[in-house]
C-alpha cells in the first residue's frame, strides 16, 4: 500500500490545486527562458541561415546589420580567389518600411492595451500606439551564392534577375502580392519562415541588384555624397592639368555613382582551414574589417537587447526562487497537516523510512507533475506570443532537476519536523 498515493487520493482537490499552482509558476519561468532564447535566436537567425564563417565589412564598421557598412561589390571576386576561401558572397541589406494598414488580431490588440494600461503613468499613450507601417529587412544576394532564403515554404525561389522577392510569412505578404519599394514594384514569388532580423523585423529576400536599387533609392544623400567626394578628390589630383580637371571630375563622379556597393561579403572558409588565418589575410589585403559569425551575433545583442536579456534572466531567477519557496512551503504544510497521522503511524510501529518516503514521494510527485504541466502549458502557449518564444526539452529537464532538488530539500525539512512529533500527542491526556 503506497501511503503517498492514498493520502493524495484523500486530499485530491488540495493536491491538484497545489500542483496546478506549481505548474503555472513553472510555466512562467519556462516562458521567460523561452523569451530570452527567442531574442537570442532571432539575432542569430540570418547569420546562421547564411552559413558563412566570416563577415567582411567596411573598415571599423559594425556591419552589416548593426551599422551600415559599405564596400565595393567587386571585392568579393578577390576575396573568393584568396587561399582557404570556399565561397564569398556579396550581400546588400536595407531596412525598408511600407505603409500598410496593420490589422492586429484581438490578441495583439489586447497585448497593446495591456501594455498601455500597465505603463499608464509616465508613458504617453502615443508612444505605444499601434503602428501603421510594416518594417522589414531586405537582403539582396547573388542567386547561386550563399545568403538566400534557407527554406521555401510556399511558392518558389527567386528565378528572374529582377523584381521578384521571397518574403517571410511574418510579413503577412501573400504569394503574387506586389509591393513598392523605392521606384519599383516587386512581386512575392515565394514564402520563407522564421527569418527575422535581430530587431524581430521579418526578412524579404531579393536579388543583389534589386536590393542595391532599393538601398540607394532609400538613400539619395549617399549618392550626392559620393558624387561630391569623388569630384573633389579628382579636382585635387588633377591640378597639373587645370583645363582637364573639371570634365575629369565630372566623369569620375559619374563612374563613382555607378560603382556598385554592397554592405558585406559573407565568406565560407574551406574545411580544415583556420578561420582566423583567412580573416587576417582579408584584413591585410584591404582596409576591411572581418568578423566571425559568433561576433556578428554578439554585436547584434548589444545595448538594449542585451540588457533586456540580462534583466529577464534575473527576473527568471527571482521567479525560480519564488517558485522554490512556494513549492517548499506547500510541501512543508502538507506534512504539517499530517503530523497527527504521522504520530499514529509511529505508534503503530510503521518503519520510519516508510513515513519519510510518503512525505518525499508526495513532494517529488507534485514537483514532477507541476513541471510537466508547466511545460505543456508553455509549449502550447508559445505560438501566441508576439515574438519568438523557444523553450527546449533541455529547459524542462533543467527545471525538473531544480524542482526535484527543492522538493527533496523541503521534504527533509518537513521530515525533520515529523521526527519531532511526540507519539503521545495522539494518546489520551
Amino acid at each position, binding site marked *: 500500500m503506497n501511503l503517498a498515493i492514498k493520502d493524495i487520493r484523500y486530499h485530491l482537490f488540495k493536491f491538484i490545486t497545489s500542483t496546478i499552482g506549481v505548474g503555472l509558476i513553472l510555466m512562467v519561468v519556462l516562458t521567460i527562458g523561452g523569451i530570452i532564447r527567442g531574442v537570442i535566436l532571432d539575432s542569430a537567425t540570418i547569420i546562421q541561415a547564411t552559413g558563412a564563417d566570416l563577415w567582411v565589412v567596411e573598415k571599423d564598421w559594425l556591419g552589416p546589420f548593426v551599422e551600415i557598412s559599405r564596400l565595393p561589390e567587386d571585392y568579393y571576386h578577390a576575396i573568393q580567389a584568396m587561399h582557404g576561401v570556399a565561397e564569398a558572397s556579396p550581400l546588400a541589406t536595407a531596412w525598408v518600411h511600407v505603409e500598410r494598414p496593420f490589422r492586429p488580431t484581438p490578441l495583439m490588440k489586447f497585448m497593446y492595451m495591456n501594455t498601455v494600461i500597465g505603463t499608464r503613468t509616465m508613458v504617453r499613450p502615443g508612444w505605444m500606439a499601434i503602428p501603421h507601417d510594416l518594417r522589414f529587412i531586405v537582403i539582396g544576394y547573388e542567386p547561386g551564392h550563399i545568403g538566400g532564403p534557407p527554406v521555401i515554404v510556399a511558392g518558389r525561389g527567386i528565378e528572374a534577375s529582377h523584381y521578384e522577392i521571397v518574403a517571410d510569412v511574418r510579413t503577412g505578404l501573400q504569394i503574387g502580392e506586389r509591393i513598392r519599394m523605392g521606384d519599383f514594384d516587386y512581386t512575392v514569388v515565394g514564402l520563407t519562415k522564421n527569418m527575422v532580423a535581430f530587431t524581430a523585423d521579418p526578412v524579404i529576400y531579393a536579388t543583389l541588384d534589386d536590393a542595391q536599387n532599393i538601398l540607394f533609392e532609400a538613400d539619395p544623400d549617399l549618392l550626392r555624397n559620393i558624387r561630391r567626394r569623388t569630384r573633389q578628390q579628382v579636382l585635387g589630383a588633377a591640378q597639373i592639368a587645370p583645363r582637364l580637371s573639371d570634365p575629369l571630375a565630372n566623369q569620375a563622379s559619374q563612374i563613382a555613382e555607378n560603382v556598385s556597393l554592397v554592405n558585406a561579403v559573407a565568406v565560407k572558409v574551406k574545411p580544415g582551414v583556420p578561420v582566423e588565418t583567412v580573416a587576417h589575410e582579408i584584413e591585410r589585403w584591404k582596409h576591411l574589417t572581418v568578423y566571425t559569425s559568433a561576433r556578428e551575433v554578439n554585436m547584434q545583442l548589444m545595448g538594449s537587447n542585451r540588457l533586456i536579456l540580462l534583466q529577464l534572466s534575473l527576473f527568471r531567477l527571482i521567479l525560480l526562487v519564488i517558485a522554490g519557496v512556494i513549492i517548499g512551503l506547500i510541501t512543508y504544510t502538507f506534512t504539517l497537516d499530517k503530523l497527527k497521522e504521522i504520530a499514529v503511524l509511529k505508534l503503530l510501529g510503521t518503519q520510519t523510512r516508510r513515513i519519510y518516503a510518503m512525505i518525499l514521494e508526495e513532494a517529488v510527485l507534485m514537483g514532477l507533475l507541476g513541471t510537466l504541466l508547466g511545460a505543456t502549458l508553455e509549449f502550447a502557449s508559445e505560438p501566441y506570443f508576439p515574438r519568438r518564444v523557444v523553450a527546449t526539452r533541455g529547459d524542462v529537464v533543467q527545471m525538473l532537476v531544480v524542482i526535484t532538488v527543492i522538493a527533496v530539500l523541503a521534504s527533509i525539512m518537513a521530515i525533520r519536523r515529523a521526527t519531532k512529533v511526540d507519539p503521545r500527542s*495522539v494518546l*489520551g491526556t
Partner: protein
Amino acid sequence: MEYAIQATDLSKSYGQGHTQVDALKGVNMTVRPGELFAIMGPSGSGKTTLLMILGLVTEPSEGRVLLEGQNIYNGTGLDLQRLRREKIGFIFQFSNLIPFLTAKENVLLSLELIGIFGRQADARAMELLEYLEVADRAGNLPEHLSGGERQRVAVARALANNPAIILADEPTAALDTERGLSVMRLLRKVSKEQGTAILVVTHDTRMISEVDGVIRLMDGRMVESDGSKQQSQPQSSR
C-alpha cells in the same frame, strides 16, 4: 503461567529540579493473556504515562517491563518500533484511524507492517472487520463512519498483528454510554476469544462490570488492584 506483560517498580519523572513531576512512583502490575484490566484514576494520576511505558513509547525512569518475558528497557537498544508493530495494539480516545485510508486499508496497513500482504492480508482484514461487525463499512473512509464504528475498526486494527497486549487509552470517552459499553463488551469478547491481554484506561465506573480487574492510580501510585473476578490475582504493589 506466562504473563503477557509484567511491570516491576515502574517510576517515571518528567523534568528536573523543582519543576520535576513524578508521574509514576513504583508501580507493579501483571497482565496475563486473555485478561482485561481497567486502569482508573483521576486526571493527572499517571494513567497515560503508564500506558506509554507499557506501549514502548516512553522509557521509565526506573523499573522493569517484561513483554512476553522479554526485558524491554534493558539498555541494549532493542528495536522498539518493531516490537511495537509486532506485539502491541493501540486504541486511542478518538480512534485515530488514518483518515486517508478506508476502514479496510487501516487494517491492511497494520497487517503490512508485520509482513502480511496480498490476498492473505485481504482475507484477514475482512475476517477482522466481520468479527467486529463492521465488514459492511470496509470501503468507507473513517470520516464516513460513526464514532462507534470507528472504534470497532480501531479494535480490528489493534488486533491485526495478533498482539500480546492491547493498550487502550479512554477508548469510550468520546462515545455515549450505550456505545461505550458495547465497545467494552467487544474488548471483553476479544480478550476471551483471542486470548489477548487488554489494558483499558477509563473513567466510567459502569465499565467495571466488564473487566477482570481494576488498577487504580492516584498521584502516580497504585492505590488498589482489584482482581476479584479473576481466579488468579494479579500481583499488587508492596
